[in-house]
């Protein structure tokens, strides 16, 4: 397409740095580093053991560099700072005692935390570098029996629950980045929805990386007991730095009988500049286990940020009749690279999964979908439907689809549909001829392309996602 010169002027309004004093540990990773983190966080012995086990396993593993469709320089794991926390009073009686600088930071990000300004209907856990700085609506949720707190508090206050479920979906030796996370994770969110409770509000975690030298290694664990349900949102941003920061997170979801978990992400980490300088290296393991019968786990992700995205939110469909869903929009521009998709592992009878993936590539970026649908011998009557669509903007980007399908019984059905399209000059001209500016036209086409996924997002998120895609593509056509 002749007019698609990739000018690429991208606005990233979250690129500011908060000037705050931090408590950092020295660079590098060893058993001593882990002991230091445990000491800083005042963790019990069993956590130390969990971490050391993961670390020792990690030492035997190699970084998965050969199979993902990603190219990046070698990461020096000894050059990363594994713990960096803003200095503040050790115990905070109320949210209003949180460092005003931090409150200002989150307010600037659109996440007011103080009680007068809190978002209605959404409880937020705010994570800044390595620690959770505040969690809203904690008390209100507690009245319903819902536990929503930082991981640090969960280890302290609910050790039995954490012990029971931590690592039960993503074992410490699952993969290189999950092992690394298990060894050094510093905070994150913990949600527990007791039997029969529909969580009365949306739960969310906002992740902010501020320090240019430290990585962020957080952990999220959501447990929905029998017959309960919860909708959880996750947002992420980081300042603009010339250097890359490492982000290796683990998210585990557990749904017991008849429970439902809906997990939505809008990922907007700093993506680097036009030449690919800076940006977050985002290596994330997200997995949900439909442990009980008739349970349902639904992942919706809008991935627009990060220099590198390596992420496959997956479902293990263990309970009979359980349902797994994956709705994804992954947008890459400039020099961004994404290798993302899902795994649906059918173990139980009559389990069902749906995968809708929309990849949009612009600039010189590379966007790959990688998905596995595996139907085990006992998963009789399992069904999967997969739809993978890619859209290219300009002629210097790439889109790939790597579907893996393994079916081990003959009563199951698996469908896979894929398409690749381009925004054509004719399409843009048509919309422009109706008085719509070129940028709005691109936005409209992209939003139409992503409609099936956006419909899955909670209302506010859908608006945010729509706006974000428009912003990210500004100047990429023309």
């Amino acid at each position, binding site marked *: 397409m002749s*007019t698609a010169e990739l000018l690429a002027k991208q606005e990233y309004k979250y690129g500011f740095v908060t000037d705050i004093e931090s408590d950092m540990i020295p660079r590098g990773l060893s058993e001593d580093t882990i002991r230091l983190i445990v000491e800083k966080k005042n963790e019990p012995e069993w956590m130390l053991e969990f971490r050391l086990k993961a670390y020792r396993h990690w030492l035997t593993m190699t970084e998965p560099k050969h199979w993902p469709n990603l190219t990046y320089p070698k990461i020096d794991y000894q050059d990363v700072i594994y713990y960096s926390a803003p200095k503040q009073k050790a115990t905070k009686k109320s949210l209003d005692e949180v460092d005003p600088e931090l409150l200002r930071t989150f307010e600037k990000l659109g996440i007011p935390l103080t009680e007068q300004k809190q978002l209605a209907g959404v409880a937020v856990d705010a994570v800044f570098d390595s620690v959770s700085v505040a969690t809203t609506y904690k008390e209100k949720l507690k009245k319903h029996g819902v536990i929503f707190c930082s991981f640090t508090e969960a280890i302290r206050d609910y050790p039995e629950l954490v012990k029971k479920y931590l690592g039960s979906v993503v074992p410490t030796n699952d993969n290189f980045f999950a092992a690394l996370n298990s060894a050094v994770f510093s905070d994150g969110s913990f949600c527990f929805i007791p039997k029969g409770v529909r969580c009365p509000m949306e739960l969310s975690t906002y992740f902010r990386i501020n320090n240019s030298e430290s990585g962020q290694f957080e952990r999220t664990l959501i447990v929905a007991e029998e017959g309960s349900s919860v909708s959880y949102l996750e947002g992420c941003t980081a300042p603009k730095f010339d250097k890359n920061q490492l982000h290796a997170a683990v998210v585990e979801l557990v749904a017991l009988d008849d429970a439902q978990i809906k997990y939505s992400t809008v990922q907007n980490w700093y993506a680097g500049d036009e030449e690919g300088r800076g940006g977050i290296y985002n290596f994330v393991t997200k997995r949900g286990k439909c442990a009980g019968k008739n349970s349902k786990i639904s992942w919706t992700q809008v991935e627009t940020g990060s220099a590198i995205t390596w992420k496959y939110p997956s479902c293990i469909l263990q309970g009979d009749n359980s349902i797994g869903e994956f709705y994804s929009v992954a947008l890459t521009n400039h020099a961004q690279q994404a290798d993302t998709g899902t795994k649906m592992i059918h173990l139980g009878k009559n389990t069902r999964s749906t995968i809708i993936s929309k990849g949009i590539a612009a600039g010189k970026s590379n966007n790959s979908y990688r998905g596995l649908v595996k139907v085990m011998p006992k998963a009789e009557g399992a069904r999967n439907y997969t739809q993978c669509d890619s859209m290219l903007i300009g002629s210097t980007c790439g889109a790939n689809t790597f579907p893996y399908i393994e079916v081990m019984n003959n009563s199951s059905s698996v469908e896979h549909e894929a398409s690749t399209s381009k925004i054509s000059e*004719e399409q843009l001209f*048509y*919309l*422009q001829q109706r*008085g719509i500016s*070129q940028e*709005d036209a691109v936005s*409209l086409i992209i939003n*139409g392309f992503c409609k099936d996924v956006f419909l899955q997002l909670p209302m506010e998120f859908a608006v945010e996602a729509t706006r974000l895609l428009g912003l990210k593509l500004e100047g990429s056509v023309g």
Partner: protein
Amino acid sequence: MLEIKNLHAGIEGREILKGINLTVNKGEIHAIMGPNGSGKSTLAKVLAGHPQYEVTAGEVLYEGRNLLEMAPDERAREGVFMAFQYPIEVPGVSNAQFLRLAYNEKQKHLGADELDPLEFKDLLKERAKVVEMDASFMTRSVNEGFSGGEKKRNEILQMAVLEPKLAVLDETDSGLDIDALRVVAGGVNQLLTPDNAIIVVTHYQRLLNYIVPDFVHVLADGRIAREGGKELAFELESKGYDWIKTLDGEKGAGAPAN
């Protein structure tokens, strides 16, 4: 309203329009006819600002302004509308959503009130009557899965919503059966006012039975070879385009058409 002077234009270095002169006033209907490859559609696309066409000489004044300097979306907001010969599909975007965006862009441009989805729905329902379209079309994706006739009707619906000052209908009759043709043409006639003008680009005289032109211009090889009133269309229909080609030959290649 529109003044085209010695317009030369082409695509990929190949000249297609070789000196067009044409004046269109308010309240007039002009028909542009001609054989395949004579430059009819090129003229329509150049007026709308299609990026692939390059103007190499001449000028186009629209309400006294240089039309060629305006971006396609600006032309549209100023009231230039083109009904496409092959309307484009926009998957996932509902007709109503698309039309409201286009309508509000124009309103914004005119400093008039924008409409919210509910208000717009009422307006759309009203305008849809012009082309006898039912409500189900509004929630469907733009042109996706529409039949040829439905797509053309949808073009005229867009015209009804946007109320252009100058509408260029590019082969709106192609692919229409007689009933659809009547509906589409009836819609266009309802939209003509003393303040706007319509240019109908067509290969056949058939459409002109329904949309009766004040002037007929016959293109041949990028020039206007013949001009006249509506009777010229009938003459063409009976004699065929070869007749024009012969005339063109008699005049001699390269001679100005008028």
